């Protein structure tokens, strides 16, 4: 069940989960495995006729104990919807579910990093349309969060705190704010409509957030997704990743809770592809300026409110 191989040339792990080749692929709504099991209907992954939020172990895991975990988080028993259309209370509940899973998975000896994420849209490889996210619990700290920790060291303190202060001072790329959360298109965004949802106070993880902060985070996520959907008047594809502190045994190494969105669209109907420079050299070539994208996104968030 999965096999890690270390790619010496890249200095990174590659996970071979070849059983995933056979996972359910874009079923018709009546065969959705994430819908509830209706009386007299087909049995789904969730053997209940109704539910609020459900988490279960992925049938096609990329990581499995004692070398991590793979879980599915189903946001609602309705087949339609998104973070932007769920009730504010439901998204708030989701924050507590994320918090509970981060705490429980992170406490395991075989888990060094818990990544909560969502893939939305066929453009980013979604295989099930039912509103849901996933959790991968890695037996190592993956390269992206590791680079964020290195940025902390390079900047001599929390990189996110420093970048947040710069963004708030500049203001041109900020698209949404509350007392607890700020959302901005980062200064050096890779994707045209990349956005970071950042806790204003330094919080290493969801465990450090109080109820008001979690509610504010939920509100910001909903507002951003509604804004995304308003951009081109259609469901907006993205990859969403929740970055938190590693859960390894080492000393605390910084980390600042934030949620990153990587949308592949650079304009309506046009995808940004990772091609020669991005894949061959690791350097993103961007087609838009973050300040211009932020202005467009800010207006869309206002329209979507």
């Amino acid at each position, binding site marked *: 069940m999965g096999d890690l191989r270390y790619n010496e040339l890249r200095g990174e792990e590659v996970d071979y989960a070849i059983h995933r080749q056979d996972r359910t692929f874009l079923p018709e709504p009546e065969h959705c495995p994430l819908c509830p099991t209706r009386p007299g209907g087909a049995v789904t992954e969730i053997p209940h006729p109704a539910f*609020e939020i459900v988490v279960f172990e992925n049938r096609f895991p990329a990581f499995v104990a004692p070398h991590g975990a793979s879980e599915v988080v189903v946001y609602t028993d309705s087949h339609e919807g998104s973070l932007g259309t769920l009730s504010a209370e439901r998204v708030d509940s989701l924050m507590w579910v994320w918090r509970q899973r981060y705490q429980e998975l992170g406490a395991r000896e075989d888990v060094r990093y818990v990544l909560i994420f969502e893939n939305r849209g066929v453009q980013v490889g979604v295989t099930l349309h039912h509103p849901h996210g996933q959790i991968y619990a890695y037996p190592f700290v993956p390269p992206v969060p590791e680079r964020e920790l290195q940025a902390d060291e390079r900047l001599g303190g929390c990189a996110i705190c420093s970048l947040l202060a710069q963004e708030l001072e500049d203001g041109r790329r900020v698209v949404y704010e509350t007392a607890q959360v700020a959302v901005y298109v980062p200064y050096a965004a890779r994707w045209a409509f990349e956005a970071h949802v950042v806790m204003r106070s330094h919080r290493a993880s969801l465990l450090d957030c109080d109820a008001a902060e979690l509610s504010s985070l939920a509100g910001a996520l909903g507002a951003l997704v509604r804004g995304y959907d308003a951009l081109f008047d259609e469901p907006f594809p993205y990859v969403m990743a929740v970055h938190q502190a590693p859960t390894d045994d080492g000393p605390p190494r910084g980390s600042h809770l934030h949620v990153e969105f990587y949308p592949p669209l650079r304009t309506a109907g046009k995808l940004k592809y990772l091609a020669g420079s991005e894949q061959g050299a690791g350097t993103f070539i961007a087609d838009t300026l973050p300040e211009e994208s932020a202005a467009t996104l800010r207006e869309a968030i206002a329209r979507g409110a």
Partner: protein
Amino acid sequence: MRWETAGPPGAGDAHTRTDGPREEPLKVAREEEHVGPLSFTREVKDDGRMLILYRRRGERGDG
């Protein structure tokens, strides 16, 4: 945590499958746990995978 088996197939509980008898009935942890405004219960699916049902206290399956 205390685990119990749900009723046998056809017993009419919420965990009864509709595609025929299963080899092992679902195991359900009867104790409710809590996190923030949520209650949650754990189950073990037929194939041994874990499933957790979360419910906001005071709310019932509004989808």
